[in-house]
């Protein structure tokens, strides 16, 4: 079986982090597409307007976003994106400091797949995709 390819959505308010993230994602060789957004609302709009195809989408969202935080985004996503579309997205949280409270809060949302430390590393990303495959 060929390794699965994914769409990617990266949400981070730092231009540099978006740039680095995109490099890593594209460099993994397993991205069908990669969209970066500096605001959660723009990313949400994109998700709402895109249609489902053969590939699942991996979302990487920074927790500490202004206005709509990463957690707000997930809440908004779970509430407004209908099934079965919702399950074609795999949401992962990005943080530069893993915090116990964040961990606890993330358990409240069924659509959180994993916590990733910033900056995103290629092997971590590939490991994440492999786990989704099996």
């Amino acid at each position, binding site marked *: 079986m060929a390794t699965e390819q994914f769409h990617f959505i990266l949400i981070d*308010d*730092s*231009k*540099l*982090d978006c*740039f*680095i993230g995109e*490099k890593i994602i594209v460099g993994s060789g397993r991205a069908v597409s990669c969209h970066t957004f*500096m*605001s*959660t*609302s*723009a990313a949400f709009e994109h998700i709402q307007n895109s249609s489902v195809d053969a590939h699942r989408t991996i979302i990487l969202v920074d927790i*500490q*976003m*202004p*206005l709509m935080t990463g957690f707000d985004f997930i809440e908004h996503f779970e509430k407004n994106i209908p099934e079965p579309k919702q399950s074609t997205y795999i949401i992962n949280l990005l*943080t*530069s*400091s893993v*915090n116990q*409270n964040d961990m606890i809060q993330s358990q409240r949302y069924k659509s959180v797949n994993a916590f990733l430390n*910033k*900056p*995103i590393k290629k092997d971590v990303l590939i490991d994440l995709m492999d786990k989704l495959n099996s």
Partner: protein
Amino acid sequence: MDTTEKIKVLYIDDESNNLFGFKAAFRTEYNILLANSATEGKALLQQHPDTHVIFCDQRMPDITGTQFFEDIASEYPDPVRILITGFTDVAAVVDSINKGQVFRYLTKPYQQEEIHAAIEQAYKYYMTGFMLRKKNEELQKANEDLDKFAYSVTHDIRGPILSILGALEIMKQTQSMEELHSICNMMEESALQVNDLIVNIHAYYSLQRGTIEIEEIDFKNLCQELAELHNIQLALANIKLTITVQQVETYHNSRVLLHLIINNLLSNAIKYQKDAEVNKFVNLSVQVNNGIATIKVADNGIGIETKYLDKIFNMFFRASESSTGSGFGLYNVKDALLKLKGDILVCSEIGKGSEFVITLPGK
């Protein structure tokens, strides 16, 4: 607490004679409240939750003194409770003292000196407990603030540094000069962001710990100095800064804090401009009238959504998605104004611009 304030004593007894006798003996020294039933006592406590000492007779027709103390203990934990009993009740009282609901008891008939000593002793006990609780509350709040602070600071400082490290990794494998150049620009932005945050944290700590030095303020001179700090940014972004100062009288205040306040508002007005706007402007005006300075900073920038207006002064709040702010600037402004007993008002319309108006009485 004001130490010159009289000790507030509530005396509950179903015999009016005892009540009046008590008041007559102690009213010059203490602030005496009288109740001739438990119900009345509770009503008085509701009005005077700051009561220091409560005396209650054990034998009353509706409920006993020990029951009364048991009833009020959870709602009014602060007042020190003293039971007045006849000799025969002593055995029944021991239990309630052991439960911690009664501080001590006095037996009837009592001597004035006994009451006197009991009140003084109880008040000391009250103050110790009261201060301890107060300090504990303050400490708890300080700890919570510190947690929040540490969390945000680690995120906000570590974030950009990690980004820069990540970018360096990519640079090592990049050949294109053009791309290297654009990575450098982004790295610079991240480095400036950390620097900005650290400057603001420093300002925050000076505000919290520093003493305020009052000096004569020449607003013209202060505004000029502030404008010079922003000259380069103003020129780069093509923003017209207009300064008007009307000051004929002398005015005294903290120059350091005024500098911090106006500088933050100016930086914001410059930072949050609309890229597409052709006639970008920032107006800074100061008027000093009857010892009160009115400082206005207005711009035609991106504006602030109405629903965020009451949050913009909160620590770490950022009201703009495009913002690279630290979420610290306006918090410091508000804090500084609180210290100087000044006021700030904000009018803003999204897409049109913002105006901040400060009124600050001189010292």
